[in-house]
C-alpha cells in the first residue's frame, strides 16, 4: 500500500516538475526572444515559392490504412501483453491459444500484403494485370471514391507523396 502510494506520489511530483520545467523554458524564451516584423514573416514557408492554395491537403490513402492497421494490430498486441504477463500461469494451453491467435494475425497480415495494402509505392510497370487489380482493390479498401461516375472527379491522389 505505502509502496504504491509512494510510487504514485513520486510520479505525480515528477510529472508536475516536468511540466513546470517545460513551461519555464517556453516562458524564458518568450521573454528573451526578439520581436521582428518583416514583410514575409507572416507567410508560410514553401521553399521560397509563393504559397498557392490551402494547406489542408487531401492526404493519401495509405496514411489512412496505416492508421487502421495500427489500431487493429496494436490491440492485438494488447491481448498478447495480457498473455505474456500471465505466461507461466496459462501454461501450455495458453501458449497454444496464443499461437493460434498469432497465426491468424499473420494470416491477416499475409492477406493484406498480398492485396497490396502494405505497399506504399506502386510501380505499375512491375505489376502483372492480376496484381494491379489487387493493388487497385487495396486502394479501394482504403481510399474510396476513386473515379465514380456521376461524382466529382478526384484530384490525382497527392502525387508528391509517391515520388
Amino acid at each position: 500500500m505505502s509502496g504504491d502510494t509512494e510510487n504514485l506520489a513520486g510520479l505525480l511530483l515528477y510529472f508536475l516538475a516536468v511540466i513546470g520545467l517545460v513551461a519555464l523554458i517556453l516562458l524564458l524564451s518568450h521573454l528573451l526572444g526578439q520581436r521582428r516584423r518583416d514583410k514575409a514573416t507572416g507567410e508560410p514557408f514553401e521553399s521560397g515559392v509563393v504559397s498557392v492554395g490551402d494547406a489542408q491537403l487531401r492526404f493519401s490513402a495509405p496514411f489512412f490504412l496505416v492508421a487502421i492497421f495500427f489500431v487493429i494490430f496494436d490491440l492485438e498486441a494488447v491481448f498478447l501483453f495480457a498473455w505474456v504477463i500471465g505466461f507461466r500461469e496459462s501454461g501450455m494451453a495458453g501458449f497454444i491459444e496464443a499461437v493460434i491467435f498469432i497465426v491468424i494475425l499473420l494470416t491477416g497480415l499475409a492477406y493484406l500484403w498480398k492485396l497490396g495494402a502494405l505497399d506504399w509505392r506502386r510501380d505499375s510497370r512491375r505489376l502483372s494485370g492480376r496484381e494491379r487489380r489487387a493493388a487497385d482493390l487495396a486502394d479501394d479498401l482504403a481510399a474510396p471514391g476513386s473515379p465514380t461516375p456521376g461524382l466529382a472527379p478526384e484530384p490525382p491522389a497527392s502525387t508528391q507523396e509517391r515520388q
Partner: protein
Amino acid sequence: MLNIPMEHGLLLAALLFSLGFIGVLIRRNILFVLMSLEIMLNAAGLAFVVAAARWEQADGQIMFLMVLTLAAAEVAVGLALLVQLYRRYQTLDMDVLSQLRG
C-alpha cells in the same frame, strides 16, 4: 489502490455514458457522433473496471480489453465509411444520410 467507493466510479461512468448518449442523439456531424459512441463504449469499459475493482476479480478487466477491441474495430470501419462519405458528399452532416425512406 486508493480506495474509491464503487458508486462514485459507476456514477462517473454513468455520467460519461449519458454525455456520449446525448452526443449521439443530438450531434449532426458524423465524426462527433462516432466520437460520442466511443465515449459511451469507454464509459461502459470504465464501469467494468470499477466493478472489477469492487469484486477484486480480473474478469471485468478482461471485459474492458474486449470493449477496447470492439471500439477499435468500430472506429476503424466507421472512419473508413466516413472518408467514403466525405468524398461523396463533401460534408459530414448527418442529413446526407437521408436518401432511404419509404
